[in-house]
C-alpha cells in the first residue's frame, strides 16, 4: 500500500537527502545567501559560482530535515550548467509550484516532480523551498 508518506519520502528524495550531507559551499562562490526557517531552526547557506552568465557550480551547507536537504541537493542538480536567467526562472517556478499552485515545476523539470508531494503537507512546504529561497537571494547578489 502506498500513501502520502511514500510520495513525500520517495526514494529519490531520501537518496538526495543522503547525498546532500557531502555538499559544501564552494570557496569560489561569489554569490551567497543564508536562509533560516525560524519555525524549526533549519538553516541553509547556498553559494553559486558564475562564469559570465552561466552557473558553473552550486554548493550548500545545510542543517535540517530530509526535505530541506533533498531540496537543496535538487537545487544544485537543477541549476548547475544553466544560464543565470534560466536558473532564476527555474527557482521562481519551483517556489511558485510549491507555495501557490499547479504543476508548472514538474513540466519545467521532471526531476523536481517528487517535491510536489509536499503540497499535501502544508506545514512542511517551507522545508522544501528554503534552499531555493536562498538561491533566489544569492542570484540577486
Amino acid at each position, binding site marked *: 500500500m502506498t500513501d*502520502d508518506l511514500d510520495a*513525500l*519520502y520517495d526514494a529519490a528524495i*531520501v537518496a538526495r537527502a543522503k547525498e546532500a550531507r557531502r555538499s559544501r559551499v564552494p570557496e569560489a562562490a561569489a554569490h551567497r545567501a543564508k536562509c533560516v526557517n525560524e519555525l*524549526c*531552526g533549519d538553516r541553509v547557506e547556498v553559494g553559486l559560482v558564475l562564469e559570465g552568465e552561466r552557473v558553473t557550480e552550486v554548493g550548500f551547507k545545510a*542543517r*535540517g*530535515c530530509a*526535505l530541506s536537504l533533498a531540496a537543496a541537493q535538487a537545487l544544485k542538480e537543477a541549476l548547475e550548467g544553466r544560464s543565470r536567467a534560466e536558473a532564476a526562472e527555474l527557482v521562481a517556478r519551483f517556489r511558485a509550484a510549491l507555495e501557490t499552485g499547479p504543476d508548472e515545476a514538474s513540466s519545467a523539470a521532471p526531476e523536481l516532480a517528487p517535491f510536489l508531494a509536499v503540497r499535501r503537507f502544508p506545514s512542511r512546504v517551507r522545508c522544501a523551498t528554503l534552499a531555493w529561497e536562498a538561491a533566489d537571494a544569492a542570484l540577486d547578489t
Partner: protein
Amino acid sequence: MSFDVAALRAEFPALAQTVHGKRLAYLDSGATTLKPRAVLAALEQAYALDMANVHRGVHELARRATEAFEGARARTARFLGAVDPATVVFTRGTTEALNLVARGWAAPRLGEDDEIVLAELEHHANLVPWQMVAEQTGARLVWVPVGEDGLVPPEAYLERIGPRTKVVALAHVSNVLGTVLPVAAVTKAARAAGAISVVDGAQAVPHVPVDVGALGCDFYAFSAHKLYGPTGIGVLWGRPERLEQVVPQQGGGDMILTVEKERSRFKGVPHRLEAGTPHIAGAVGLRAAIDWYTSLDLPALHAHEARLLAEASAGLEALGCRIIGRAPGKVAALSFVLEDVHPHDLATILDREGVATRGGHHCAEPLMEVLDLDGTARASFGAYNDDADVAALLRGVERAKALFA
C-alpha cells in the same frame, strides 16, 4: 491500584476524533494538554451565565464573577500548598510570570557585580528573560552544566551559588529530558547565599506534587494549559515579602487605589500586578482544571504515566532509538533520536499515523547545543494516554525506519 484510563478518556472530546483516518494518539501534552469536559463546561458557565467584569460592579452578575475569580485564586493557592490567596498573581502564562519576576524584581535590583545562576537545560522562557536582565543591568549569567543522562545533581548548583548570586532560576521538571531537578536543595543554598529562587513549574505541575513551602522557593510559575486547563492564563506564586518587592510592569485599571493627574496609589498585591480586566473565564477554567485533576487518584495516575514512559522507552530502544535523558525518576517527557531521521521528518511520519508528537529544539536551544543535537523527537504523556498510544508511537517509528531504510 489500577487507573481507569478508558473512563477518563471519555471525558476528553478531542480523543473522539480521527486524524488522517487514524485513531488519535495524543503524545504532545508537554506542549499543551487536551481539555476535559469539566473545564469546557466551566468556561461555558463563565461566559454564558456569570459574565461580568470583576472587582467593580455592584450587580448580581458582577458579584458572581468576582466570587468565581477570587475563588479560583484561593483554590490555586491551596493547590500549591499555600494558605494566603494573595500570594497568587494571575498572568497570561508561565512566560509572563517569569518575565514579571525578571523585570519587576530583578532588573531594578541587580548590578554589575551580581550573578544569575541557571542550568543549560532551561526552557527559553526561564532563560531569555534573564539574558535581558543581564544585558540591562550588567549582571552575569552563570551556567549549571547538564550531566550525563540529563542529570543535574544539587552539587552542580551548590558549586556555583555564592555571595554574588542574586537569582537562581530553575525548572522543576525539564521539558526535554523529563529530569526532576533538586529544587529544595537548590533553593536552600540560594537562600543561604542571600539570593532568590525562581522555579518554572510548567512541566512539573501535571506530574509531581507541588508544595511551595516544602520546595522553599521565592517564586513559582506555571500555566493552566499544561494542566488540562485553558490557554492564556497562568500563575505566579510568590512569598508575600517578595511579591511586595515586585514593581508593576503595567499600569491601568484594577491595580489602583486612587488616581490623580500627576500620580496614583496602587492596590496591594496581588492586584497591583494585574492591571486591566483579567482573564476571568480563564481563571475559572483553571480552577475547574485543578478540581478535575485533584479529583483523580494521583499516585495511581503518576504510576500509570511512569509505566507508559518505561514501556515506550523500552520499545523505542528496541527499535534502535537513542533515549535523550535518563535521570532516575524522570517524568512526563520522552525525548529520543532515530539515527539518520531528522526529528521533523519523524514528526510528520508520526502525524500521518495519527500520533501527535513534537520534534525540534523544544524551546531549549542551548541544551541542544550542549547535547550536540539538531533536535529531538518528543513524546510527552498525559492522564489520558494508554497502551494503544504507545503501540501507535512504536508503529510510527517503524514506518519511519522503513521509509529511510
